[in-house]
């Protein structure tokens, strides 16, 4: 094996990447002709092979871990392009090169593993959809793009995957494109992601300029220059780009220019990209709408993999992010705020997928909080566990929707928890797996979610990010912002509240779906009913049924759907052993990832209280107990509200403050806020531009000039009236004008630089002209009389001085006209010898 795939030319990566691409191509081009079984085979074989190759690769990677922890498998495909960067404008090659290290190895396994399970699930879920082949083509293409994203060895290549997953997400959200709302949601997702991509583009041009590289190794080598003020790596925020505002704009000039370090600029730009992809404030609004896509898509793309790309990127470039404690603080604050905001919204939603969508946004907020406080392993571990339990939840929800679809064909009604209830009787497997995943996400002790979330909360409290290069602080502009000490506890309590809400809304969802009475339709006795008429999971078929008639009980899903659920539920419960925390010796995940994060977190992330390790260890158990309370309180309230009280308290609360309830139900009307502010501004700007373009620009350059030409034509035409008297009159007037011109002298002169600051002034000749000069401009003529031959005057003018020369011309008729001439000597231009 080692000889077949050497570390520096690990061509097996081509298989990992190539199989999903092949699947996408085959299903996309020939899918319609192949038929469902062949499409299914192609898609599953593609992802399955990719998964097997990933497992092999993972163990190969494990075998190459060096003594210092370094492990990297590299495969260079071909040279892609190049650009200009660095301090001296050198050529920076950008190659199509992939690499696998510990971090991307884990991601690769999640993507192909969870991806394979979801593909298996989808073969049944999407059965009989007319876009079956198209669906799997997109899904395979998505897996390919996501693998490119994590395996890329440079930022531009990562960007290929980054945009690729955005594109697949766009195509899959709008999969049922004939409903405008779906296509609209896809567009919204793509554009929100594009705003993030804008940030990534900005980060790339900053990085290539300041570090002279875009591959991970090169960036890490040049990263120090992002913070080193000696190398001019300051980005001028105000005045824009540097410079001075003068004149009318002077009031805009600040006392001292506002600058940030290049590290902060780069990381903030990267963060914008990450918030777009990972659905954080301010760009989270697309993710809930993305639930318009088929449910397996929600599970794969909008829960388990794509949306974690932002967290992955922060982890990947952790050594850049830690250079800016300010950005780290922003990440943590954004994460905590998003976690809380999304949790509040999730607590009142009635659509099963919407609840899970906001739950995803909220959990991503936890991950951001984790990486933002410098606990990269903890944040990434939450990515890992979340992939299992959220995929399980979404697939479970899909299973439920699939059952509801048997009689409720309206997309919204079939997903409404108010139509569900009591499903545990009929769908035992779905119920138990859903319950397991719910327990994991709400943090029941010893499930995977408990370990990952608890670690994040704990580290949020005790960690403190500091300037990793304290030596710079003494230099001018070397000061680096550091977050205040009180931030940790604040973040902790915000996240604690969000965790409580998580427990509440997840238990609420679980209880409403699986407990109580079934409210979808009247369930009749099988013997009284005919054969079920409709039995497909596909949407888009609209024939309403009379739900008051008794019908079959909701059915459990086929094995293709339940087996993935069982596997995912097992991992949801058990994956925590990989990183149990609590000072336990055996921490496989942390140990595995340590080489990736060690350099970044060593100097930049300390414990609070002046790096007090004893205090931190002391806090561990106290905080764990408080975190357990979050789980207990949330669960207990939800139980009390929905089982003994049958939802009565919730109704009363909603009635008590209907305004607030509507506001939260409408997602705090953030979408409307965006529409009224940013979108309206851009929209009216575009309207104005389009109007200006037609009315002013075109009016000025096309219509006004046409008009002027037209008017002058009309005016001139008036003279061409064919009346001889008029023509004769013009001739006389013209002759008179010419006559006058010749009777008056016309003084004119040219000044020629003769070198050595000497100038020669030459008067223009004319018939019978005589000249007299006043060379020094003192008002007295050099000679009183006019002389015919006196046409030139030589002068010497010092550089930078001005000299006034007067000239009078007398013609043969004795008429005299005068002219003033300024002879200005320029300062000597720096003309070098050539």
């Amino acid at each position, binding site marked *: 094996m080692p000889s077949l795939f050497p570390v520096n030319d690990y061509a097996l990566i081509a298989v990992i990447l190539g199989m999903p691409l092949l699947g996408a191509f085959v299903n996309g081009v*020939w899918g*319609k002709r192949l038929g469902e079984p062949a499409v299914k085979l192609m898609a599953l074989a593609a992802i399955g092979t990719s998964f097997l190759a990933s497992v092999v690769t993972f163990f190969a990677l494990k075998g190459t871990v060096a003594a210092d922890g370094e492990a990297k498998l590299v495969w260079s495909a071909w040279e892609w392009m190049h650009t*200009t960067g660095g301090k001296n*404008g050198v050529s920076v090659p950008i190659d199509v090169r992939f690499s696998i290290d510990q971090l991307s190895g884990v991601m690769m396994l999640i993507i192909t593993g969870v991806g394979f399970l979801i593909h298996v699930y989808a073969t049944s879920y999407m059965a009989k959809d007319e876009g079956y082949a198209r669906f799997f083509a997109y899904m395979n293409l998505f897996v390919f793009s996501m693998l490119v994203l994590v395996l890329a060895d440079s930022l531009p290549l990562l960007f290929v995957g980054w945009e690729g997953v955005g594109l697949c997400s766009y195509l899959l959200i709008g999969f049922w494109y004939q409903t405008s709302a779906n296509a609209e949601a896809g567009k919204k997702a793509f554009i929100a992601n*594009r705003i993030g991509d*804008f940030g990534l583009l900005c980060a790339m041009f900053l990085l290539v*300029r300041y570090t002279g590289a875009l591959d991970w190794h090169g960036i890490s080598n040049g990263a120090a220059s992002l913070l080193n003020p000696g190398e001019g790596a300051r980005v001028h925020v105000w005045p824009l780009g540097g410079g001075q505002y003068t004149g009318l704009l002077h009031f805009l000039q600040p006392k001292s220019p506002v600058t940030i370090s290049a590290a902060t600029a780069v990381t903030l730009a990267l963060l914008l990209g990450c918030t777009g992809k990972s659905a954080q404030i301010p760009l989270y609004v697309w993710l809930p709408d993305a639930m318009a896509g088929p449910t397996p898509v929600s599970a794969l793309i909008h829960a388990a993999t794509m949306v974690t790309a932002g967290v992955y990127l922060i982890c990947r470039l952790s050594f850049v992010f830690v250079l800016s404690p300010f950005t780290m603080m922003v990440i943590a604050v954004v994460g905590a705020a998003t976690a809380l905001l999304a949790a509040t919204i999730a607590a009142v939603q009635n659509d099963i997928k919407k609840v899970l969508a906001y739950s995803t946004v909220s959990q991503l907020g936890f991950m951001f909080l984790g990486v933002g406080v410098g606990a990269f392993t903890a944040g990434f571990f939450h990515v890992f566990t979340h992939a299992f339990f959220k995929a399980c939840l979404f697939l479970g929800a899909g299973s439920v929707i699939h059952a509801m679809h048997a009689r409720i064909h309206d997309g919204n009604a079939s997903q409404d928890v108010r139509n569900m209830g009591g499903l545990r009787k009929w769908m035992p497997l779905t119920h138990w797996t859903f319950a397991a995943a719910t327990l994991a996400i709400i943090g029941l002790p010893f499930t995977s979610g408990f370990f990952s979330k608890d670690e994040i909360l704990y580290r949020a409290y005790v960690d403190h990010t500091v300037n990793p290069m304290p030596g710079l602080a003494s230099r001018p502009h070397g000061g680096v912002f550091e977050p205040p000490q009180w931030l940790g506890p604040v973040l902790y309590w915000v996240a604690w509240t969000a965790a409580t809400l998580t427990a509440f809304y997840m238990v609420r969802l679980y209880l409403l779906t699986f407990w109580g009475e079934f409210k979808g339709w009247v369930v009749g006795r099988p013997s009284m009913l005919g054969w079920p008429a409709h039995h497909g999971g596909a949407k888009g078929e609209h024939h309403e049924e009379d739900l008051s008639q008794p019908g079959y009980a909701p059915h459990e899903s086929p094995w293709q759907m339940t087996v993935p659920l069982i596997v995912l539920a097992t991992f949801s419960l058990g994956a925590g052993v990989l990183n149990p925390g609590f000072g336990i010796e055996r921490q496989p995940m942390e140990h595995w990832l340590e080489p990736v994060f060690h350099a970044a977190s060593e100097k930049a992330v300390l414990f609070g209280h002046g790096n007090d390790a004893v205090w931190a260890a002391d806090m561990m158990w106290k905080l764990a107990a408080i975190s357990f309370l979050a789980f207990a309180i949330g669960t207990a309230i939800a139980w009390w509200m929905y089982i003994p009280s049958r939802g009565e308290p919730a109704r009363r609360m909603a009635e008590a403050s209907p305004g607030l309830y509507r506001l939260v139900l409408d997602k705090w009307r953030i979408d409307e806020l965006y529409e009224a502010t940013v979108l309206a501004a851009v929209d009216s700007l575009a309207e104005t531009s389009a109007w200006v*373009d037609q009315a002013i620009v075109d009016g000025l350059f096309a219509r006004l000039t046409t008009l002027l030409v037209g008017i002058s034509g009309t005016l001139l035409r008036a003279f061409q009236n064919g009346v001889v008297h008029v023509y004769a009159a013009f001739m006389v007037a013209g002759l008179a004008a010419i006559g006058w011109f010749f009777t008056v002298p016309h003084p004119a002169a040219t000044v020629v630089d003769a070198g050595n600051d000497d100038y020669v002034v030459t008067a223009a000749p004319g018939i019978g002209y005589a000249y007299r000069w006043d060379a020094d401009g003192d008002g007295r003529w050099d000679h009183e009389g006019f002389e015919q031959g006196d046409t030139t005057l030589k002068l010497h003018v010092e550089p930078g001085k001005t000299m006034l020369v007067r000239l009078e011309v007398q013609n043969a008729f004795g008429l005299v006209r005068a002219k003033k001439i300024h002879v200005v000597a320029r300062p000597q231009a720096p003309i070098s010898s*050539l």
Partner: protein
Amino acid sequence: MESPETPVFSHEDRASWQARLAVIAVVAALAALAARMSHEAVPVLGAVLIAALVPRQHGWTVRVPLAAMAGLLALFVVRMWPDVAEVADATATSPEGGHILSWMIALPILGALAVLVLPRQAEGAQRGLTLVVMLTTLGMSLKLLSVSMGRGFHFDENVAWIPRFGIHYHVAVDGISLWLLILTTVITPIATYASFGSIHARIKEWCFSLLVLQCGMLGSFVAMDLFLFYVFWELMLIPMYVMIGVWGGSSRIKSAIKFFLYTMFGSVLMLGAILYLAYDYARVSGGPPSFDYFELQRVLLPLHVQGWLWAGFTLAFVIKVPMFPLHTWLPDAHTEAPTAGSVILAAVMLKMGTYGYLRFSMGLFPEMSAAWAPNLAGVAVLGGIIYGALCAWKQDDAKRLIAYSSVAHLGYVMLGLFALTAASIEGSVIQMVNHGVSTGMLFLLFGVIYDRRHTRQLNDFGGLARPMPVYAALFVVATLASIGVPGTNGFVGEFMIITGTFASNMLGHFNGVQATGAAIGVILGAIYMLMVVQKMFFGPVSEKNAKQHDLTARELLSVAPLAMLIFIIGLFPNVFLSQIKGAAARVKDDFDSRIENNPPPMFYEGPTKLMPRRPEAPQPATAAAAPH
């Protein structure tokens, strides 16, 4: 033409299956043979086979040409692969004789004359001749690829034309004009072939115009004598004016005149500047005037004189590009032009402006170009990339929208030129080609639906993805290229331009702001192009749209090569960049050497003088070459 009701396989089809299998077997045998002969054959045959298998509803009349195109493009990539090309260059001395450039210019003109003598009724012969001439020109242009371009000029031909005024027939090609030439020879046959599906009146005149137009475009890209350049520049104008005015839409006359007057206004000023420059050369050198590019490049003018001449040239070019605020002729011209006219106008003729600015404004007047670069870059970003995109967003007419998107895209190209870093110039040149490919494809595709529905209003469409899935897929591909999704060609150019812009020190302290502004264009591009896709293809399908049939063989064949090129440039840009690199570096070095000696803000204000010839300029014409 097939209609959707026709079954995909009839009985005859089944009967001939065995024959087809035999054909496949023969092809496979040939493939195996070829694979043994050369390692190049494997990717080529792979491409051929895949392309032959892809089309769903078409027979061998489509599969074979498609396979041929794919094979040729694969061969092109394999042959031009940077390492391979360098090795080949080292071993073989490049034959540059044969007057290829002259033949490329002459052939379309000869073809045009031949079309004139054909009888009017023989429309098939006229069409066939036109295509044969264009494809021959394409074949000849591929011969140019046998030479590694490097920094210099190649296929240089320099013959005295009007010796009394120092006017020469001087043509040459370098890494910058190479791809623009090939773009021209690729796009014109495609546009011509596609147009035969929709133009049915005055075929003779149509073919004549197309051939003359091609001659003018090719000549402009290779002319190294300013007088000759001007002749071709004006020659190009007339056929396009006629094409819009005769075969255009409802208000075609107005648009044609607007197009003509705008362009003419600029060119007349350029003519004045050319004449002044030529006679200034005579004054300084003491010899006869010269219109030769490499000689005129030697003239070092004081800044205040340079300003006027630079303005004359630059005005002509920015009108052609077009840059804000001189762009309003473009939407009108595009809207009224027939599909082929729009394609050629967008794909090639607009590049005349950017190419001209790079070659002439920057080559002849570096000081003035440097002085104006920061301001013009601001115009390119604000007035082009952002304003153009915002205007595009608010158009209801699809062709107007694509026209405004051209304004935005060419804003990137101009920004790259103003920034003047190695990467940004290369990015600009590749972006010129990219825009030609992707916008050309968009216009072609829109022409398809226009021929069916005879409306350009976006709101008249909707849900077309259902009746026309192949069309929708190809349109989405063109859209992705247009908004610069990585992996397609658009990204390569934009990325190089944006990163190159930020690395620039030509733009003063505004390089960061301008790079950011250019990056914002990426968002806006997605907004307006996705709106088009949304309105045309998604949502419920109306009855009129539901009956439309998918692409015909002609439409598919004309679009396919462009779709392939989108991915080839996107994935293997080095194939193209390796030829551009040297020329871009030369332009930058020429520019920098002048600016270093005459630094800003004064630049140069002394008397006009002659500098030495630039090292990469081809040998001047010998006295023997000039007839006495």
